[in-house]
């Protein structure tokens, strides 16, 4: 190849590049590359969704449902419309009402299909279906934005979606991993709060116990103090209604509570150690609002000190089988809890300790 041919090739390359930039064709090529990448990842999500749906069908068939498809389709398409926010009056009451109706309706749908199954099995089916539902929503939303972007030739939408795909896939994989724990009833990282509560019940002298609103209240005598341990009723997959129950308990005790402590899992920041413990003030609970505000209202109504203990973990650790380092943090948290109780209350005080989170695999 002589010098003239080489420079001709280079010139042609530059001309092609110039032509592509001027006409915007380079953008179209780039968009095609992004669309192909999104489509590949969307197929991956669909594969995961179908796999988990199949496992759920097997689970339901084992519980005696001959054709589980209608139940699965009905539950995963179930939705709750958020209450009107522009009018804040009674929003918590309205939200609580809607959340409870959602829970009751889904529970009844499942109960009607598998009436002979126990509460434990039904709770596992309920959460398993909610995981499949979450994956189904992710799949539908990604598909919607991909098709909209293609239809409207909106490369900004496609670009944003392509950039978000790794994070979306991370969430999908986390839910997929969580499926195993929920299908088999293994404790998850989020269950650390109920586990600490259970350890506290084990350590103390049990006086009484009762169940209210899917939530257990166990009265124990521990370190010369009367402690009411509140946690979701286990060992099924259940988060209970700790806020409403604490509110009622405080009213029953006419406000004569010296300290309230909530123990919960908290999402850690990147770089923080999983299973590390931190203390603070306030209600450590991650619900949409009604439970948290009920605890805050009960504490502020009677001027009760409200303390929080959190055990840090990432989202994957929170919703998949409890890691050993988090399990081991339960004993350290109990010691931390004892220290707070001894520092802030005197013997014969009355204390409420709430273990917040999903109590799957943890009784009491």
């Amino acid at each position, binding site marked *: 190849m*002589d010098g003239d041919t080489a420079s001709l090739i*280079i010139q042609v390359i530059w001309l092609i590049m110039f032509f592509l930039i001027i006409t915007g064709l380079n953008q179209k090529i780039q968009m095609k590359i992004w669309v192909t990448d999104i489509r590949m990842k969307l197929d991956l999500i669909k594969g995961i969704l179908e796999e988990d749906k199949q496992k759920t069908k097997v689970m339901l068939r084992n519980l005696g449902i001959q054709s589980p498809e209608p139940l699965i389709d009905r539950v995963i398409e179930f939705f709750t419309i958020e209450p009107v926010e522009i009018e804040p009056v009674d929003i918590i009451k309205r939200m609580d009402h809607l959340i409870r109706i959602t829970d009751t309706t889904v529970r009844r749908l499942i109960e009607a299909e598998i009436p002979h199954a126990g509460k434990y099995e039904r709770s596992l089916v309920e959460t398993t279906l909610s995981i499949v539902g979450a994956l189904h929503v992710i799949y539908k939303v990604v598909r919607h934005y991909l098709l909209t972007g293609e239809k409207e030739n909106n490369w900004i939408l496609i670009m944003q979606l392509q950039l978000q795909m790794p994070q979306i896939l991370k969430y999908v994989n986390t839910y997929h991993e969580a499926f195993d724990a929920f299908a088999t009833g*293994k*404790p998850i990282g989020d269950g650390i709060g109920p586990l600490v509560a259970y350890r506290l019940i084990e350590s103390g002298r049990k006086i009484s116990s009762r169940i209210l609103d899917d939530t257990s209240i166990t009265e124990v005598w521990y370190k010369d103090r009367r402690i009411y341990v509140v946690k979701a009723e286990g*060992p099924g997959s259940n988060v209970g209604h700790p806020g409403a129950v604490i509110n009622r308990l405080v009213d029953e005790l006419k406000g004569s509570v010296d300290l309230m402590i909530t123990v919960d899992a908290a999402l850690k920041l990147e770089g923080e150690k999983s299973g590390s413990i931190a203390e603070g003030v306030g209600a450590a609970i991650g619900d949409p609002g009604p439970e948290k505000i009920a605890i805050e209202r009960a504490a502020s109504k009677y001027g009760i000190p409200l303390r929080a203990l959190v055990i840090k973990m990432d989202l994957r650790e929170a919703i998949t089988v409890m*890691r*050993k380092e988090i399990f081991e943090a339960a004993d350290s948290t109990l010691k931390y809890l004892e220290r707070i109780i001894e520092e802030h209350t005197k013997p014969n005080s009355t204390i409420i300790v709430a273990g917040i989170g999903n109590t799957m695999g*943890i009784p009491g």
Partner: protein
Amino acid sequence: MSTDMNTLSNIILVILMVILIVYLYLESRPKKPPREQYVTRVLIQCSSCGYRLEKDFEAGDFIGLDKGKCPKCGGVVKIRGIYAVEKSKILKPQ
């Protein structure tokens, strides 16, 4: 002579561009750390003598469940914990 130099510089330019494109492509590929394999283990403990044993999870297991009698003292053995451990860190029976 000048033509040869011109050709050489063009070839070098093209090679450099190819190297740059390959480098950018390799850099932009997501680097995934090797994912650990986890297995669920059950820690059982005797409530009398404190004897401990780690076993594989069985369907229906939950914390606090009675798992029979202690092989050492005959006391009640219960599940103390259920957790996930990396496959390489499974405790071997002593």
